[in-house]
């Protein structure tokens, strides 16, 4: 166990080293940060002085070694745009992203398990077919479109009268396709302070309201995938010998489905799920931009637009770290759920 963790920490360091090297080597293609820092009419001599001051004129290796030396002491430099240490900037934006991912994950788990199981147990029911159809559509709609449609429907509201308004049934149908709007369309509102840089939206009903639309659109990417995954695994498990035996033995169906079959269904789902949660952190870039959710994704996009190289490099390294951590956690959980798997990979 300890050997496994040590190995993983070593992995994390290696991943972060490689990411920093790659991020650093593409910085010349990210544009000129000076351009973003000064006004248009500032003469070239002033720009050159600033470039020299920031050390941008040094050769690549000198710049990288300087960065690596500081990074070893957890000093990742100053963001050009925020004028603060990049670690502080990220610490301030991280909680918003994690809360959004947590809310989306909750939605995914709460919906995908029952829907997936249901459509495996009753594969021919019209409801199952409906879910499968919707999930195909869901998987092919890009997240920013989902987000904008959600905003139009539930934040601005749509008033649509395709049916005659002089009849009761017409009015009823019109009301059905007309939405009120009124949901918050951007930002986090006034989140409640917990500690440090962590402000939470989970503490008040109003705060939760701000989470609804962003969480739905973020969840919309992964939800169809999970429904289909759980359904496929469940179908397979239901064909297995022990399920047939349990049935023959006369155990109640509910117990077979939710105790015996579901447990085995979840094994591969945990593996895929863990990795996908990591990916979800990356997907927040789009969702956060549309909803102006003040998390890391929005911060990262802004950093790219402003060629804020120190912040870009730090962000990439931290996302790399998050991936390593989630993968490690997945492996640990997998070991707990399925004790036949040995973490270190050595034969028992």
């Amino acid at each position, binding site marked *: 166990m300890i050997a496994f963790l040590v190995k993983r920490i070593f992995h994390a360091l290696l991943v972060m080293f490689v990411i920093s090297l790659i991020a650093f080597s593409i910085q010349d293609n990210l544009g000129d940060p000076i351009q973003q820092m000064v006004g248009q009419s500032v003469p070239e001599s002033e720009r050159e002085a600033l470039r020299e001051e920031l050390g941008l004129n040094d050769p690549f290796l000198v710049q990288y070694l300087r960065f690596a030396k500081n990074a070893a002491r957890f000093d990742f430099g100053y963001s050009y745009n925020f004028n603060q240490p990049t670690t502080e900037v990220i610490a301030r934006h991280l909680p918003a992203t994690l809360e959004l991912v947590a809310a989306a994950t909750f939605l995914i788990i709460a919906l995908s398990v029952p829907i997936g199981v249901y459509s495996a147990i009753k594969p021919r029911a019209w409801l199952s077919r409906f879910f499968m159809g919707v999930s195909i559509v869901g998987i092919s709609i890009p997240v920013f479109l989902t987000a904008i449609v959600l905003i139009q429907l539930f934040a601005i509201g749509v008033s649509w009268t395709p049916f005659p308004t002089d009849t009761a049934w017409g009015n009823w149908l019109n009301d059905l396709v007309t939405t009120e709007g009124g949901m918050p369309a951007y*930002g986090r509102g006034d989140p409640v302070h917990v500690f440090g840089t962590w402000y939470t939206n989970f503490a008040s009903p109003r705060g939760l309201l701000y989470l609804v639309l962003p969480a739905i659109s973020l969840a919309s990417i992964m939800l169809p995938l999970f429904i289909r995954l759980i359904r496929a695994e469940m179908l397979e498990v239901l064909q297995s010998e022990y399920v047939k035996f349990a049935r023959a033995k006369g155990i109640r169906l509910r117990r077979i489905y939710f105790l015996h079959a579901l447990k085995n269904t979840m094994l591969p789902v945990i593996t895929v799920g863990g990795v996908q949660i990591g990916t979800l952190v990356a997907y927040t870039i789009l969702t956060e931009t549309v909803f102006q959710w003040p998390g890391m994704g929005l911060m990262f996009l802004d950093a790219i637009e402003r060629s804020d190289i120190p912040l870009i490099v730090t962000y990439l390294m931290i996302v790399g770290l998050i991936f390593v951590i989630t993968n490690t956690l997945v492996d640990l959980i997998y070991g707990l759920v399925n004790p036949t798997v040995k973490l270190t990979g050595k034969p028992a």
Partner: protein
Amino acid sequence: MTFKKTLLAGMIGATVTGATLLPSLAAAQTTLRMAYDADPVSLDIHEQLSGGILQLSHMTHDPLVRWTSDLDFEPRLATGWEQVDDTTMRMTLREGVEFHSGNAFTADDVVWTVERLKRSPDFKGIFTPVESVTAIDEHTVEFKTGEPYPLLLNLATYVFPMDSAFYSGTAEDGDPKDEIVKNGNSFASSNLSGTGPFTVVEHQKGTRMEFERNPDYWDEDSPGNVDRIVHTPISENATRVAALLSGDVDFIAPVPPNDLERVRESDDAELVTMSGTRIIFFHMDQNRVDAFQDERVRQAFAYAVNQDAIADRLMKGFATPAAQFSPKGYAGHIESLERRYDLEKAQELMAEAGYADGFEITMMAPNNRYVNDAKIAQAVATMLARINVDVDLKTMPKAQYWGEFDDRAADMMMIGWHADTEDSANFHEYLTACPDADTGAGQYNAGNYCNPELDKLVSEANVEVDLEQRAEMLQQVEQTLYDEAAFVPLHWQDLAWASAPNVDIEPVLNVMNFPYLGDLVIEEE
């Protein structure tokens, strides 16, 4: 170490927000919730010469004089001015004005501020003509210029007196409080004391900014009734519009062209548009393409581009088609200059110059800097195809584009320009003056157009105190640039703002895009 710092910062942030929550509980406050596309880079108003910083300056500070909506001067902290001789102007300052800190505003603050401006990398350029500023008495200052300088009042719109006592001494980290730091923290980048209508209560960069009305604001005649402003930057166009239409915010800018109709037709919003002063145009690089040295070829390009079509169809009327640099109201503007779209004439000129079969050129434009920039470039490329010019177009994000622009990497390059001095001479100095790396003249002249006579004319105009005479000289410059087709003009980008119906934004808006929010009136609902 870093973690501790982070914790500490978080705790400080907590106490600040805790403190701000209390006054917001007080009843009957008029709050303006607004959303621009970005927030100011810093609270130090001398750190960057940009629209965002100037918009902030007009909220938290007052200039000596400010522009009215018809480009005239209105006294603010300076109540009067007189030209003592050709190089000296004396200004009388308003009495009884206090800074947010409680310090009294005096002539020394003006002197201190101008001296700091002359140290700022961004502002020192436009303040070079000012040789010295001296305090004559507590409420009189004297500006001295090296040569006669006709634009001193234009410069005075950039002087937002800062609280010299507040910014003197050393900060906690041992650095002087008045230092101007572009990268890193300085005292001035997070602390602010001006004379303006609003004080900054909170600034979470990129997320939220909160202002409160200065209770001791000197301008008691101001109709403004906004007690509190909450600014949330929303960079995404669609979201910004949605936030207004759904009633989450009361005031947004800019309004993207694609949503203009939607906002105009909405009952929940009022739209205000204005013809702007930022000229969008193409340079034709004479160093890269020999054909561009032939005036007839440049003429042909100017005749081939249909500005009205671009303004009408691409910009949906959200642009004023242009034939010159200077927008209406500027000294050099010539009312009679016409756009010269004429395809036949363009083809004739090409044939005359010996290029009937055309030639190949490269073109570059940004794709996220100006409204519809990439689409405009595509349209121009298509129009040039009609005179058999084969355009290899490349568009890229602004972060990459300006590097390419500095390298003069393509034969035709797009740029938009707003004259910081609101004056015609500025266009020529940066865009069409003979390039000279030492003096910085023609810094953005990617066309390498050079006409020494014009340079001479402009430098003469810059010391001409007779404004009518000066306007004539600047008009002559515009006329020559037009006749020699120094560049391909496209349009002045329009400005657009939108607000909730009870927020009366129109009176506080102007063509510089510095809304005077101190004077904003919100009607009771």
